[in-house]
């Protein structure tokens, strides 16, 4: 069998693939949430190992992609200020705002620094007491403990010159928003393994019940994903709608409790706007009142910044699994990773960029007849 090179255990992968073929008797549409999984699926060509009646659609789990354009604009406005050191994960530097991006601000002399960890940004603040140090705190639940720890450390060290530009999002409310939409076609979910390493998986059990949808907590290696798909399709074929855990080697039911405690020391749940989707109630974290002096939006009194998205972009449909990237008229011509028009082309974990980079559009379009098929 071809396409098995990227699998840790090709024999296991082959047997998983054969078993998926065996159990699948009907068409199903399933969604992976995590951008890391999207990347892994598209890069490994995993869809070639699946029956053509299985449609894998790619969800909104890429923090770089769903960070609203207004936030990117705010980051650029702050980074341009003379007395500021703006710190961020590398991925965010390449995201274009309305007229510029953080890399360009850096090239024009702005002090923009890539950090590996938000804790490094706290160290920079300690070493530069006469500068304002701002960290761009984006991410899902996986990243929240580190970001919360950074704020907590700044608080304990009584740092007055550290703040975060916070755009934190949460997986379960996004799943609920998809499931409660009248256009939903997702019948089963692969939940994001590392998110559950932090949060555990108890909050997914009521979702599976309420919406009659099976959910399998899944790792991100190609073999994990095949295994997760087999567990999910088996549930669908048997008419079960349960929470199962494929990734038990990394995920405990209760998650990492000290990490959760740190998150809730610093953050509270708030409404968040998702790029390409819009506002989802209670779908993110914001700093609690006691920590509001660490909020860069307050500190720099940015007010409301509004930016228009490109009218060509159908990211909302892509992130809901209603269309595949190659069905967008701008895909690969007006919109490329070098000059992205919309969210999913921005990061290598976004669905459009993953399709573009690994040239899956041809493979995928051979199966695209099923994309619009109603089940």
């Amino acid at each position: 069998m071809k396409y098995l090179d990227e699998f840790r255990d090709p024999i296991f992968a082959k047997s998983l693939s054969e078993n998926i073929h065996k159990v699948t008797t009907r068409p199903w549409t399933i969604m992976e949430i995590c951008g890391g999984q999207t990347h892994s699926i598209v890069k490994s060509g995993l869809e070639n190992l699946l029956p053509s009646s299985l449609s894998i659609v790619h969800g909104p789990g890429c923090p770089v992609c769903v960070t609203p354009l207004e936030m990117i604009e705010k980051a650029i406005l702050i980074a341009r200020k003379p007395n500021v050191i703006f710190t961020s994960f590398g991925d965010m530097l390449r995201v274009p705002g309305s007229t510029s991006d953080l890399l360009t601000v850096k090239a024009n002399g702005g002090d923009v620094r890539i950090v590996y960890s938000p804790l490094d940004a706290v160290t920079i603040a300690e070493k530069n007491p006469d500068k304002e140090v701002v960290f761009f705190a984006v991410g899902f639940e996986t990243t929240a403990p580190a970001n919360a720890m950074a704020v907590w450390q700044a608080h304990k060290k009584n740092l007055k010159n550290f703040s975060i530009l916070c755009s934190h999002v949460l997986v379960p409310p996004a799943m609920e928003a998809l499931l409660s939409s009248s256009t939903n076609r997702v019948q089963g979910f692969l939940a994001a393994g590392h998110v559950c390493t932090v949060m555990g998986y108890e909050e997914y059990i009521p979702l599976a019940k309420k919406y009659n949808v099976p959910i399998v907590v899944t790792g991100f290696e190609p073999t994990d994903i095949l295994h997760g798909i087999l567990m999910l399709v088996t549930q669908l074929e048997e008419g079960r709608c349960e929470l199962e855990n494929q990734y038990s080697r990394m995920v405990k039911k209760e998650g990492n409790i000290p990490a959760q405690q740190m998150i809730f020391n610093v953050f509270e749940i708030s409404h968040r706007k998702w790029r390409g989707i819009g506002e989802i109630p209670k779908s993110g974290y914001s700093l609690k009142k006691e920590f509001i002096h660490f909020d860069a939006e307050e500190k720099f009194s940015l007010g409301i910044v509004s930016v228009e998205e490109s009218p060509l972009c159908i990211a909302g449909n892509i992130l809901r699994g209603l269309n595949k990237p190659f069905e967008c008229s701008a895909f690969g011509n007006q919109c490329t990773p070098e000059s992205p028009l919309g969210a999913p082309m921005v990061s290598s974990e976004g669905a459009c960029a993953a399709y573009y980079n690994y040239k899956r559009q041809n493979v995928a379009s051979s199966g695209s007849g099923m994309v619009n098929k109603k089940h």
Partner: protein
Amino acid sequence: MCLAIPGRIEYIDAASNPKMAKVNFGGIIKNVCLDFLPEAGLHDYVLVHVGVALTKVDEKEALETIELFKQMGDALDELKEGDPA
């Protein structure tokens, strides 16, 4: 950016607060906070995301994952990023 990567604890600074360690990811060494994993000890393998250890990993699992990352080429890149603090 959401991947967590397994590495081996090479050194623990017992006096530090938060508790910090040096963790080796297939040859790249990073400072990692152990506060959320008090049970982690010297030479344990831990799953780390943006400088914070999230769970322990068994050695075989960790080595296989690191090997796969190396083959896939790009997953370890974020460890190489970052201007010195």
